[in-house]
């Protein structure tokens, strides 16, 4: 995941939809440099002073956009993201949920090939309080401070951010990775961002399934991360359903359980908590 400087030139894909429009304006209000929007809706040329183009190519050529945030409906995400990456966008955040997993994989591979950063899909985006908001999070829950939050869950990131803002030393960056099995930025890559920004306090908000949290922490320690990580996991009470019954069960087995993740993280010096309101107090 690449650095966020706050001066990114942001294009909103799907700006004429209900959410796209609402969040484009909210982000602009926050101070994000929204330079344009893209929509297939030919009738709308402008939204409250934001120019609306019909193609990413045109948008990039005319406005110099280098970053995109995607709100288009799931069936159109592959097309929209491909167009953005082919047009030279270097940072792309995909908010849309219900994107087919194989589409996410194709976008990831293309982003990798184009050396672009991808966050999401099915994520709340990224916020660096006081600098930039590239997402849909309620900004009031993110008071500026020195702690990074890395989360697979959107609403839980808000919960933890509110707690950190109220009872701890505030948020340096909120990174919502997304809840899908295939996501563009994983924990390891989010930790690279943390290290580049010299943040030494991290909250990891995880969920049952997969082992991305373990792999991510392991890799960051190998790369020399010396700070403190505290973790909270949701989904302990989720019964092993039909999906846990087979998908990757043979290679994952016990490794997707929270008990296992917590044990491994503890071995790496990560403190884990059963209540999120005990993080960093």
């Amino acid at each position, binding site marked *: 995941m690449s650095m966020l400087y706050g001066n990114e030139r942001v294009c909103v894909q799907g700006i004429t939809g209900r959410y796209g429009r609402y969040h484009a304006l909210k982000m602009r209000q926050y101070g994000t440099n929204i330079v344009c929007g893209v929509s297939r809706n030919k009738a709308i040329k402008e939204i409250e002073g934001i120019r609306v183009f019909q193609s990413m190519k045109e948008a990039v050529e005319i406005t110099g956009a280098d970053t995109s945030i995607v709100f288009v409906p799931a069936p159109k995400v592959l097309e929209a993201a491909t167009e953005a990456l082919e047009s030279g966008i270097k940072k792309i955040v995909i908010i849309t949920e219900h994107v087919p997993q194989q589409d996410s994989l194709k976008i990831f591979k293309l982003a990798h090939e184009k050396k672009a950063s991808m966050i999401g899909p099915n994520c709340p985006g990224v916020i660096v309080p006081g600098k930039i908001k590239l997402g849909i999070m309620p900004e009031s829950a993110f008071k500026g401070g020195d702690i990074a939050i890395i989360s697979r869950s959107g609403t839980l990131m808000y*919960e933890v951010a509110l707690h950190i803002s109220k009872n701890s030393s505030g948020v340096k960056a909120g990174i919502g990775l997304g809840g899908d099995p295939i996501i563009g930025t994983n924990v390891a890559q989010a930790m690279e961002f943390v290290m580049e920004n010299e943040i030494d306090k991290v909250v990891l908000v995880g969920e*049952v399934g997969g082992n991305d949290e373990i792999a991510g922490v392991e890799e960051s320690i190998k790369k020399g991360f010396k700070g403190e990580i505290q973790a909270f996991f949701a989904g*302990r009470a989720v019964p092993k359903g039909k999906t846990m019954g087979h998908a990757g069960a043979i290679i994952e087995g016990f490794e997707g359980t929270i008990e296992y993740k917590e044990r491994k993280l503890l071995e790496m010096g990560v403190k884990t908590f059963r209540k999120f309101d005990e993080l960093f107090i």
Partner: protein
Amino acid sequence: MKIHEYLAKGTLFFHGIKIPTSKFYDSYVEENISFLPCVLKSQVLVGSRMKNGGVLFAKSRKEFLNFLKELTEKPIRGETPDGVLVEELVDIRHEYYVSLLLGRKERDLILCFSEKGGIDVEENAENVVSGPFDEIIKSVPEILRETIFRMKNAFESEDMIYLEINPLAVAGDGQVYALDCVMDLDENAFFRKTVHTGYSFPAEENPGFHFVELTGDIGIIGCGAGIVMATMDAVKMYGGEPADFLDIGGGAGKETVIKALEMLSRKGLEKILLNIFGGITSCDEVAEGILSFKKAHEEVRLYIRMAGNKAEEATDMLNLFGINCYDNVYEMVRSCLQVGDEYALR
């Protein structure tokens, strides 16, 4: 979404993978069978079908009819079968295990392979090699490769998220057959309608929330999967049992809240927790839904926690009608279960 074996086999066949001569029965009929000996397989989605009497082998017409009658009627591990798939018995020389899935960590197509396929593969997990498709395929016996490439093609073009063929068998005639399979389709890709599975898509029925029924007695409603799971965990931590997982999502309005509460109360739940963090959701709209429900259902005890967008307005509104709100989720859960903080199992 996992689909039944007989539909999955049809898909494999469409993609050029050999399956035994077969016939599907959705109910019992007295008729002659043209291939014997045969195997009769109950079409259920639960695992361990064989170990639970869902697979029977018939050598004669009489046996075939008896077993067909038995399997069309018999539930397997509580699941009523969709029908019975009857297949000609293949003369098996060797059984392999092959599966394809999308690797979360690798973000690539993963191939899992074992020389020792069959029903006990999960107990012999150490024999399974797995990794990116292009690497693992090199160590797979030549005779299987064409079939596995066809599996890959089926997997990609039909938007699968999991495909397992076990056993993938080499028969006495030197041919490779898919004898049993598990196929999981990505529901998010149904809009493409490219699947050749014969699966009939359910009519769009969107209640506006995501619901999973569980076995406990404490109703749970929240906005966002993470919050709902964390609330379930809190209930369990303090000794309670969640009755459900119900996520009304972001931006839910009054009607969705009423619908969700109505549904849980119809299940006879006496205590329902609502954990709302207003991001896009406006807490006052949720509160309106709660009030409207409460008027009709005085007997249901509601425990409400609100934070975020318009939480104060919502709390004031609810307080006015004598409904208490908590601003901390753990406090809400303790109060609902009437336990102190020391109860938390650490």
